[in-house]
Structures are given as structure tokens and as C-alpha cells.
């Protein structure tokens, strides 16, 4: 009887240990704030609608990578969001900061795309339309996307 009780006790301790280890492993990852993730996803959609990816680069507006600054910030935003997810999976608290960095890059990308569009509009109305290259310019007042690639 005593032997059986010992066995049950040992099994109970063993299972508790397994549950403990599993819960510790489960806690290793952290969850990114859902509101901020949703906000990032919404901004990503806005960036797509505005056509950030297609903003052309010109002599005056060219980033270090030879693309338009808007596109560069979009790439940075996506890269940092990916890092944020990896850090969150690894349980690193810096994940939240990386998501905030990504959000700031994405907001800037959208603002730069809108600026490029308004600038081209103003130039056109002054009779100085930007040369049409790989991309077709559409007025800011046109339906989204503002910048579209010529098919």
C-alpha cells in the first residue's frame, strides 16, 4: 500500500515537473501588443493603397539605396517588423521597440509618398510636370493608388 502511494506520489511529482518545464518554455515567447500589431497592419494597407512601392526616385528624391526614400522606409518597416516578430518569439522585450520603430518608418513612408504626389501636382500645375518614366503619374485627387506602375 505504502509502495503504491510512493509510486503515485512520484508520478505526480514527475507530471508536475513536466508541466512546470512546459510552462517555462511556453513563457519564453512574448506577445506583441495586439493594438500596435493591428495599427501596423492597417498602415501597411494604407501604404499599399497610396502606392508607396511605386513612388519614383528622381535626382532630388533618391535615398542611399537608389530608391525613393518612401520605398526605402517601407522596406525598413517590413524588415523591422519581421525582427520584432522574431524577438517576440524568442521572448526578447526589445520586440515592442522594434515594432514601434517599424511603425515610425511606415508612417514616414506614407507621408513621403503623399509629399511626392503633392509636389508633382504642384509642379504640373506650374507647367513643370515631372518626366514620365517607368511610372505613370496620377493626380493626388485621383482614386488610390496615387502611383501606379505602367503595365
Amino acid at each position, binding site marked *: 500500500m505504502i509502495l503504491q502511494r510512493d509510486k503515485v506520489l512520484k508520478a505526480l511529482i514527475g507530471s508536475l515537473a513536466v508541466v512546470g518545464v512546459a510552462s517555462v518554455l511556453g513563457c519564453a515567447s512574448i506577445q506583441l501588443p495586439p493594438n500596435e500589431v493591428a495599427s501596423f497592419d492597417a498602415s501597411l494597407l494604407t501604404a499599399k493603397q497610396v502606392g508607396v512601392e511605386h513612388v519614383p526616385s528622381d535626382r532630388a528624391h533618391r535615398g542611399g539605396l537608389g530608391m525613393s526614400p518612401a520605398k526605402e522606409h517601407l522596406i525598413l518597416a517590413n524588415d523591422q517588423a519581421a525582427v520584432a516578430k522574431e524577438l517576440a518569439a524568442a521572448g526578447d522585450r*526589445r520586440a515592442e521597440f522594434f515594432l514601434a*520603430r517599424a511603425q515610425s518608418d511606415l508612417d*514616414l513612408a506614407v*507621408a513621403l509618398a503623399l509629399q511626392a504626389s*503633392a*509636389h508633382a*501636382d*504642384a509642379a504640373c500645375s*506650374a507647367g513643370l510636370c515631372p518626366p514620365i518614366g517607368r511610372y505613370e503619374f496620377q493626380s493626388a485627387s485621383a482614386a488610390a493608388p496615387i502611383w501606379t506602375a505602367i503595365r
Partner: protein
Amino acid sequence: MKTTHLSLLSLALMAGFLNACATTTNVPGVLELARLSDAAARSGLPAKFAPRELSAAEQTLERANQEWVRKGDTETCRDLAYIAENRLELATAVAQTKLDRAAHGSNETSPGPL
């Protein structure tokens, strides 16, 4: 004995002085850049045409400055400075957009040169 104490004291003072110098000069580049951008934004277009965006950027810059004062060159300090710099750029872009839209509007309504 007294000389040893004095030289130790002077060494400690010198170390303290050097340390103080190091902490005031070694501001992370990204924080320095954000401070410069802020100074430019305050006296430029964003102050006039994008005050809300400028204020948001300055709040983040203030947090970065506080982190720097309290804890020095930490990753949080750099992250906050990076975000502040982006927000300052955003304020400039918003201000420029408003100006361009105003110019576009005035050009559309005005008859223009004949």
C-alpha cells in the same frame, strides 16, 4: 605616505573628470541627429505647418533625452531617438505637402500667365 594619498586622490579626481567628459561627449549619433533635426524643425516649416506632428516627435525626443540622462547610451535610448528622428522627418514631409497642396490650389484657381 601623504604623497601617495594625494596622488591617489588626484588620480581619482582625474578619472572622475574624464568619466564626466566621456558621458557628455559620447551622445549616440542617432540622438545627436534627432536633436539637430529638432532644432531645424523648430525654426523651419514644421513649426508653422505641422505643429501637431512636431509636438509628437518632440515628446519622443524628450523620452530619448531622459533615457540618456538616466541610463546613458542604452538600446532604448537609441530606439527612441530613431523613432523621434523619423517623426521629425514626417513632420517636415507633412509641412511640405501642405505647402505644395496650397501652391497647387492657388495655381489651379489663378488664371496663370497668358
